[in-house]
C-alpha cells in the first residue's frame, strides 16, 4: 500500500516542471448546455459536485464551459515536458500545455456506482490502485513538511481522477505548485495511465463472438501470470479485444 512520505517529494518554486506535480488550478470542461451525468444521484445541472465552485461560461450554439477550481495532478510525461523545453518552445508557447487530472478528496465525496449505490467500501480498491481510472494519493499528516511556508495542514486521502483529464497552461502549474510525486510512485502513475488508455477488462463473451469471421491483424501479449497469458487482439475492422489464454 502506498504511504505518504514514500509517495511525495518537495518541489521548489524554481524546480523544473515534472510529471506528478500537484498544483492549484482552474480546470475547464467544454460541453453541450444541459448535459447531465447519468442517474438522479448527481447534480441536475450537470456539474460535478465534488469539484468545488463550478462556474459556467455560456458559449454560442448550445455549448458552455464549466470551470472548476481545485487541485490537480500533472500526468504529462516528464520526457514530453523536457522535449518542449529543449525545443525552446516552453514558457511562452501557447500550445505547450500540460495534461492534468483533477484530485478528488475523500472528505468532499461519497462514492456511488452508476445505479446510485453507495460504494464507500471501494476506497480500499482505490487505495490499492485497482481501478484503471484513478491514482491513489495517500494522506499527509502535515503538508508543510513537503511545501515550505504552507500552513501545517493535513492532506486528506484522495485520488487523481483520470476520467476528468484536461489541459492547462504550464505557467499556471508553475505559479501554484504544492508538491510532487516521488520517482518511485511516478512508475505507478505511468502504469495507471497505460492501463487507463489501453487496458480494459477481459472482453465479454458476446464481443468475442462478434469477431467470428474477422481476420486478426495484430496480437500484443500483455502479461503472463502463472498458466495464463493475456493478449490484445486487433482485427481487420479495427476492433480490439483482450482475451486470456490458459495453458491447461
Amino acid at each position, binding site marked *: 500500500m502506498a504511504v505518504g512520505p514514500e509517495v511525495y517529494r518537495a518541489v521548489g518554486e524554481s524546480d523544473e516542471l515534472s510529471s506528478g506535480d500537484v498544483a492549484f488550478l482552474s480546470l475547464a470542461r467544454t460541453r453541450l448546455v444541459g448535459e447531465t451525468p447519468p442517474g438522479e444521484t448527481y447534480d441536475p445541472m450537470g456539474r460535478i459536485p465534488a469539484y468545488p465552485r463550478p462556474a459556467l461560461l455560456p458559449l454560442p450554439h448550445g455549448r458552455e464551459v464549466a470551470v472548476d477550481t481545485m487541485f490537480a495532478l500533472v500526468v504529462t510525461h516528464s520526457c514530453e515536458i523536457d522535449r518542449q523545453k529543449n525545443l525552446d518552445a516552453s514558457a511562452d508557447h501557447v500550445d505547450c500545455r500540460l495534461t492534468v487530472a483533477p484530485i478528488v478528496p475523500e472528505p*468532499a*465525496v461519497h462514492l456511488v456506482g452508476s445505479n446510485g449505490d453507495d460504494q464507500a467500501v471501494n476506497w480500499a480498491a482505490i487505495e*490499492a490502485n485497482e481501478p484503471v481510472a484513478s491514482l491513489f494519493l495517500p494522506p499527509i499528516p502535515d503538508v508543510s513538511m513537503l511545501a515550505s511556508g504552507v500552513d501545517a*495542514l493535513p492532506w486528506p486521502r484522495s485520488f487523481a481522477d483520470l*476520467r476528468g483529464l484536461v489541459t492547462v497552461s504550464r505557467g499556471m502549474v508553475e505559479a501554484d505548485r504544492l508538491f510532487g510525486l516521488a520517482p518511485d510512485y511516478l*512508475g505507478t502513475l505511468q502504469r495507471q495511465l497505460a492501463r487507463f488508455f489501453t*487496458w480494459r*477488462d477481459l472482453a465479454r463473451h458476446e464481443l468475442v463472438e462478434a469477431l467470428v469471421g474477422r481476420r486478426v491483424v495484430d496480437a500484443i501479449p500483455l502479461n503472463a501470470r502463472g498458466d495464463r497469458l493475456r493478449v490484445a487482439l486487433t482485427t481487420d475492422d479495427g476492433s480490439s479485444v483482450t482475451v486470456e489464454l490458459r495453458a491447461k
Partner: protein
Amino acid sequence: MTRLATILDERNLTYTAVATRAHLQPRTVRQLATGETPIDNVAVGTVRRIASALSVPVTAILEPDVPHPGDATLSRVARLSAAIRELMWSGEPVAHASPVDSREADDMATLPADEFFADMPAVDGRRA
C-alpha cells in the same frame, strides 16, 4: 450545497415561500439556492431581502470566500494554504461517480510498475 440551500433544507422551506416573503421571483431564489447563479453575482438588495425573509444575517447566506489560483493579493503559500483548507476539506460530502467499475480487479492492478512495463520494449520495437 450552498449555504442558502442548507438553510432552506433545514427549515423545510420552499423556494416559493421564501420568494413570497422576499418579494422576489421563485426562480431567483432557486437559482441562488442551487448555485446556478452565484450569490456574489446578484444585487446586494436581493441578498438582503432573502436574508431578511429568513431572519438571518447576510453573511449567513454568502458563500465563504475561497482562494483563486494566481491571486496576486495573496502570497503563493497563502493561496495554497487557503486552497487546502477550503477545497480539500469541504464540509458536506456529495455523490461522486466511483472509479471502481468492477468488484474484481484485473491482474495488472497488482503488478509493480517495472513488471507491468516489462514487455513494452517489444511493442515499441515493432512500431519502429
